[in-house]
């Protein structure tokens, strides 16, 4: 619905430019991003109002709920940044959930049974080795599948469908279906929770750093265009975009800091640290959760990779016209293989987040994740025809899906109905996107 609203001005192409259109053009903001954010707002406010009217309490737009949504989105958000690139190269990866499951088991077994013997029970090397192993295993598995796809010419749909079964089976086989728990204490911080968040001041510090970096990026981009004498965005547009970004960051930081540790844990913390509790109890804000920061970092790194490196340029060129890329001298097979390796590595990171959050590795970890990851990418505007898709769009898509699901849980929708709604939303979102693209053309 939101997407349709956002492209309403686009239909009046021949009329003199409207204010909204001019704003979009001069700020160079992607109208589809506005559509996505609008959809997100609609979902958030909708669930909040519905809860308030029907159930008597509006529980959606609370720091607690938003905090949880962000944490729950992290794992799929990390993987969908890779899925965008896979789909952009005209491929698909149906095996990410199983790769997550398998690497999760490997990480669980090594840190519970093997690494303590090597490094000692309380060594920080345990979590570091576990994370490195997860990423390496993921990259190896993904790269191997990518090699079959690129060099042996087996369609990715088939290779990764097979991979889905193989790695899920392998996950069982690692520990004969046992659940591996509890995991290393430091490793568990990756999952978030009261200890796995960075606290009040660090969060505001990060916020300030983020705003400065954003402003610097805008200035640097402007400087570069100025040096070559290209047309520049008007100053007000630059300031507008800068303020918008800063406001979003401040709001986000505020949300994460507005959610406090549960009273019992805060009480315990006060007792163990000999702090006298003020009346009404000690309030300890969570601040940014580590998995959310990991998702942000992944998003930034992947955006950099996609936009600013040769590798990224080649990925998009292959998606646009594989033959042209090859004729231009791009080693298309190698790029496709590496994209799958990257996807696998990201599944390894998500395996760490998911297992750390559960504080255990189970055989079923990541089951059906491939569907959510692909859906997030597609809702975020990635075209299955290849060549088109953005990292931030896919991550927003992941947030939209998680918001829908959490919202339905909150207002007490049946889990069967939840699935149906998510499925319908996927189809409708892609339909609206198709209309949008036709209008733009």
């Amino acid at each position: 619905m939101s997407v349709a609203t956002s492209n309403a001005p686009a239909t009046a192409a021949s009329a003199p430019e409207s204010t909204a259109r001019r704003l979009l053009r001069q700020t160079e903001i992607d109208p589809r991003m506005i559509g996505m954010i609008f959809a997100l707002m609609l979902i958030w406010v909708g669930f909040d109002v519905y809860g308030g009217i029907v159930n008597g309490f509006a529980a959606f737009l609370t720091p607690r709920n938003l905090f949880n949504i962000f944490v729950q989105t992290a794992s799929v958000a990390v993987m969908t940044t890779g899925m965008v690139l896979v789909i952009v190269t005209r491929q698909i990866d149906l095996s990410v959930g199983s790769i997550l499951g398998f690497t999760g088991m490997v990480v669980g077994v090594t840190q519970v049974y093997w690494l303590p013997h090597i490094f000692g029970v309380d060594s920080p090397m345990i979590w570091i080795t576990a994370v490195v192993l997860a990423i390496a295993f993921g990259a190896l598995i993904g790269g191997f599948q990518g090699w079959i796809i690129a060099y042996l010419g087996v369609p990715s749909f088939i290779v990764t469908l097979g991979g889905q079964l193989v790695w899920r089976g392998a996950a069982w086989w690692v520990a004969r279906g046992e659940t591996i728990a509890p995991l290393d204490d430091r490793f568990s911080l990756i999952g978030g929770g009261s200890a796995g968040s960075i606290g009040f001041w660090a969060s505001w510090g990060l916020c300030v750093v983020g705003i400065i970096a954003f402003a610097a990026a805008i200035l640097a981009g402007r400087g570069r265009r100025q040096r070559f004498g290209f047309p520049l965005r008007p100053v007000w547009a630059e300031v507008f975009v800068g303020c918008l970004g800063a406001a979003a960051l401040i709001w986000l930081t505020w949300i994460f800091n507005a959610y406090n540790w549960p009273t019992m844990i805060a009480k315990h913390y006060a007792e163990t640290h000999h702090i006298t509790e003020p009346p009404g109890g000690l309030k300890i804000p969570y601040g940014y959760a580590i998995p959310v920061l990991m998702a942000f970092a992944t998003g930034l790194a992947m955006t950099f990779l996609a936009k600013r490196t040769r590798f990224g340029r080649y990925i998009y060129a292959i998606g646009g016209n594989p033959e042209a890329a090859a004729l231009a001298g791009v080693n298309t097979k190698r790029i496709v293989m590496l994209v799958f390796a990257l996807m696998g590595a990201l599944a390894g990171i998500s395996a760490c987040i998911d297992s750390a959050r559960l504080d255990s590795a189970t055989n079923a970890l990541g089951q059906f994740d491939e569907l959510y990851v692909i859906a997030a990418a597609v809702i975020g505007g990635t075209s299955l025809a290849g060549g088109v898709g953005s990292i931030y769009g896919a991550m927003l898509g992941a947030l939209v899906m998680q918001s829908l699901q959490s919202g339905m849980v909150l207002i007490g929708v049946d889990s069967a109905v939840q699935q149906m709604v998510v499925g319908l939303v996927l189809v409708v979102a892609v339909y609206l996107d198709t209309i949008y693209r036709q209008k733009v053309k």
Partner: protein
Amino acid sequence: MDATVSPPSASPLVVMKDISIAFGGIKAVDRASLDLFPGEVVGLLGHNGAGKSTLIKILSGAYKRDAGEILVDGAPVAIDNPRDAKKFGIETIYQTLALADNVDAASNLYLGRELLTRWGTLDDAAMESQARKVMGRLNPNFRRFKDPVSSLSGGQRQSVAIARAIHFNARILIMDEPTAALGPQETAQVGELIKQLKAEGIGIFLISHDIHDVFDLADRIVVMKNGQVVGSARVQDVTKDEVLGMIILGKCPPGATPGLGAMQ
């Protein structure tokens, strides 16, 4: 073959000797030979499916030949992929243009040869600046540097493909129907460009269905039929009607040097 037609005092830039390639039993190119001298324009003619594109795609590294030899500056060379060909200064404007539709003109211009900043990242501003220069030379009205090339007109797309081929100091330029989508003004501009490049000593293979264009621009013509060379001739030694006879019937006139495909 070259004895009668080679310009004085130069050695050939490229020689393709007895090149053959088959696609699943169809001999797309059959023992074809070609050569090209510095500052020379060789027009390659033939009916649809004669094997012109396939032959030059072997030179540009897009296809691997089944048999035959390629010499650049007199020395046999291995051209196994497009990168090899570019290393020898062979640039190609493909009939299909071979553009990545979803990225902009500058990205296409530099595809595979991106300019990098000192941190190893893409220097889009520098690439756009160069693109503006080279496009200004070809198509001065072109302004749409930010749009993906899929949204450009056929002629604009062709200009981008031409810009890419001339931008990297080609020594050997292959133009497969370079003006098929261009308007009269742009076609004339490409004609001027060809003369200019020729004066700089660049050798050009020009594939075209327009016999008049070829007679205007080429020094020599080579006609292909069913994958074989019918014959080659200097343009002043044959008439357009005779060349039509070569293309349609495979009949080699007295002014031309017959090839394998000449009607006996």
